[in-house]
C-alpha cells in the first residue's frame, strides 16, 4: 500500500511542474510590463526602474524562474496588497474555513448522492429514475450564486430559520484554534452553543456548494449500479438466495461506487469554483472569498499563491481518491 501511494505521488510531479511554469508565465510574461503593474498607475519611471531592479525583473527569464521557484519552495509569496499581511499567513488563517465548507458539502453530496443514484438504478427507466435524472441535470444547471440568494431569501430573510451570512453569530467568539474547523474545535472546547451556531451557519452554504457534486455522484452511482447489476456475480448472489435489499445496498453498491469516487476527485475543481461564489454570497471568511477580493483588486501575489494552493490540493485529493479506490477494490492494491 505504501509503494502504491508513493507511485501516485510521483505521478503528480509533472502536473505540478506544469502548473509552476504556467503561473510564472501568467505573472511575468503575459503582462506587458510587470514592473509598471507592480508599481501602480501613478509611479514615475524612476520608481518603475527601481521596482524592476528590486524584483529582479531585469534578469533573464530563466534566472527569474529560478528565483520564483525558491520563493515558492519557501512559501514566500510576499505581502497582500489587499490585506497588507503576508499572503502565507492570510491563507493559513482562511484555509480551514474553506476546508470545513467544502468537506461538509462533499460529505453531504456523497451521503445523499450514493443512495439517490442507487434508487435511480433500482427504478431504471421508470418515473423515479426520470425524475432524478432531471433533478440531477438541474443540479448542475443551476447558478450557485442565484440559488444561494434564493435560499437566503427564503430561509434567512423570510422564514428566519437560518442565519444569513458568516461563520458564527456576532455575539459568539470563535473556539480556540486546534483544527480550525469550528464544528470540531467547539466540541473539543465543550462549547455546545458555539457548535450549534456554527452548524446553523454552515447549512445553507454547504448545501448550495454540494448541489453540483450531489448531481454528479447521483448519476455516476446510478451508472455504476446499473453496470454492476449486469455482472455474473450478481446472478450468482441472487441464485444463492441473497435478499434483494442486502444484495443491492451492500454487495452491488461497493462495486459500483468506484466510478462515483473517481468523480469526487474530478469534482474538486468545481467545488473550489463553487466556493468562490458561495463564500462571496455568504460572507464566508475562506479562501474563495479571499480569491475574489484578490482578483477584483488585481492582487497578483494572492492570485498566484491561491492558484498554486489549488493545484496542490487538487493533486492531494486525487491521490486520496486513488487510495480510496485501493481500499474499495483489493485488485488495485496488489497489481496497481
Amino acid at each position, binding site marked *: 500500500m505504501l509503494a502504491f501511494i508513493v507511485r501516485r505521488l510521483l505521478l503528480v510531479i509533472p502536473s505540478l511542474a506544469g*502548473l509552476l511554469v504556467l503561473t510564472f508565465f501568467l505573472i511575468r510574461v503575459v503582462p506587458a510590463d510587470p514592473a509598471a503593474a507592480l508599481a501602480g498607475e501613478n509611479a514615475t519611471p524612476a520608481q518603475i526602474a527601481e521596482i524592476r531592479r528590486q524584483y529582479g525583473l531585469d534578469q533573464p527569464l530563466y534566472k527569474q524562474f529560478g528565483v520564483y521557484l525558491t520563493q515558492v519552495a519557501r512559501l514566500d509569496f510576499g505581502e497582500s496588497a489587499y490585506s497588507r499581511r503576508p499572503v502565507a499567513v492570510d491563507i493559513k488563517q482562511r484555509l480551514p474555513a474553506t476546508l470545513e465548507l467544502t468537506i461538509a458539502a462533499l460529505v453531504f453530496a456523497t451521503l445523499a448522492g450514493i443512495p439517490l443514484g442507487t434508487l435511480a438504478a433500482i427504478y431504471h427507466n421508470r418515473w423515479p429514475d426520470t425524475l432524478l435524472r432531471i433533478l440531477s441535470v438541474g443540479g448542475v444547471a443551476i447558478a450557485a450564486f442565484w440559488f444561494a440568494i434564493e435560499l437566503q431569501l427564503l430561509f434567512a430573510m423570510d422564514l428566519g430559520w437560518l442565519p444569513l451570512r458568516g461563520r458564527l453569530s456576532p455575539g459568539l467568539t470563535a473556539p480556540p484554534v486546534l483544527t480550525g474547523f469550528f464544528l470540531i474545535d467547539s466540541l473539543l472546547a465543550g462549547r455546545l452553543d458555539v457548535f450549534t451556531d456554527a452548524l446553523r451557519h454552515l447549512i445553507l452554504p454547504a448545501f448550495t456548494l454540494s448541489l453540483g457534486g450531489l448531481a454528479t455522484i447521483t448519476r455516476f452511482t446510478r451508472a455504476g449500479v446499473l453496470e454492476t447489476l449486469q455482472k455474473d456475480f450478481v446472478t450468482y448472489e441472487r441464485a444463492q438466495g441473497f435478499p434483494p435489499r442486502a444484495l443491492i445496498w451492500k454487495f452491488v453498491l461497493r462495486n459500483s461506487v468506484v466510478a462515483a469516487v473517481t468523480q469526487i476527485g474530478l469534482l474538486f475543481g468545481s467545488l473550489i*469554483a463553487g466556493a468562490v461564489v458561495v463564500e462571496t454570497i455568504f460572507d464566508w471568511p475562506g479562501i474563495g472569498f479571499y480569491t475574489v477580493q484578490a482578483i477584483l483588486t488585481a492582487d497578483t501575489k494572492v492570485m498566484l499563491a491561491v492558484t498554486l494552493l489549488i493545484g496542490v490540493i487538487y493533486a492531494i485529493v486525487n491521490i486520496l481518491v486513488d487510495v480510496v479506490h485501493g481500499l474499495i477494490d483489493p485488485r488495485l492494491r496488489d497489481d496497481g
Partner: protein
Amino acid sequence: MLVLAKFAKDKPAVLGGLIVLMVVGIAILAPLLAPYPGDVSASHLLMRLKPPSWEHPFGTDNLGRDILSRVILGARGALMIALMVVGISMAIGVPLGLVAGYTHGWVSEAIMRVTDVFLAVPQLILALALAQLMGPSLQSAMLALTLTYWPFFTRIVYAETRRLSASLFIDALQCIGAGTLRILFGHILPNAISPIIVRATIGMGFTILVAAVLGFLGMGATPPDPDWGLAIAESRQYLPEAWWFSTFPGLAIFLTVLGFNLLGDGLRDIVDPRLRRSR
C-alpha cells in the same frame, strides 16, 4: 432515422430540446416579444421596484425597468456569448486535438500537457484571473471563457483520433496514399463529430452559467446591459423586499442551462449510452 426515433423516446432530452428551441426563438424575436423593448437603457424612476403585476409580470427593477423585457432581451446576449465562446473554442481545440491525436512525438506531448494543466485549474478561477488581467469587459470575459474551454475539445478529439487512427480503415487509407489532411478532415473528423456535438451542447449550457457568474462578480457585462448575472448582482441590495428582481433572471439562467444540459445529456446517451453526466 433510428437516431431520431431513439431521441424521441427520451422524454427528458425532448424536453431539453424544446427548451432550447424556445430560448433560441425568444432570442431571435426578442425586440418583438419584449413588452417594453426600450427598457434596455431607459429608466422610469417612478416605477422602481414594483412587484409582479399585469403590466409587469416579472415586476420592475431598481430603475423601474420591466424585468420581463430585460429577461427576454438578455437571452440574446447569453446565447451570443455562448455561441462565440463554444465556436472559437471548437476552432482552436478541434485542430489541436487532431494534430495531437494523429501524430506521435513532442508536439503531441506538448499539446496534451498544456491541455492537462488547463483542465487541472478550476475554470472559473482561471477565467476570472484572465478576465481581470485583460481588464474587465464583456470582450475579455468571452476571451477568458474561450481560453478555458478549448482544452475540453482538444481532449475529446485527441481520444477519438487516437482510437480511430488505430482502426483498420485509416490504415487502409494510408496504404492507398491518401494525404494526411484528407484523412484528418475527410475521414477522422466526421467520425468524431458526435462527441464534439455533445460536448458543444453541454458547453453552451456551461458557458452561459460561467458567463453569468462573471457578470455577477462584475467581470463581464456592464450596465445597462440586460445581462442576467448582472441583474442578480444588482438585485442584492434590494433584498428581501424585491424578491422578483433576483428570482426571474435566475430562473432564466436555470431554464436555459437546463435545456442545453438535458439536450446534451440525451445526445450523449445516444452516442455513448454507458455514461450519463453533464458539464
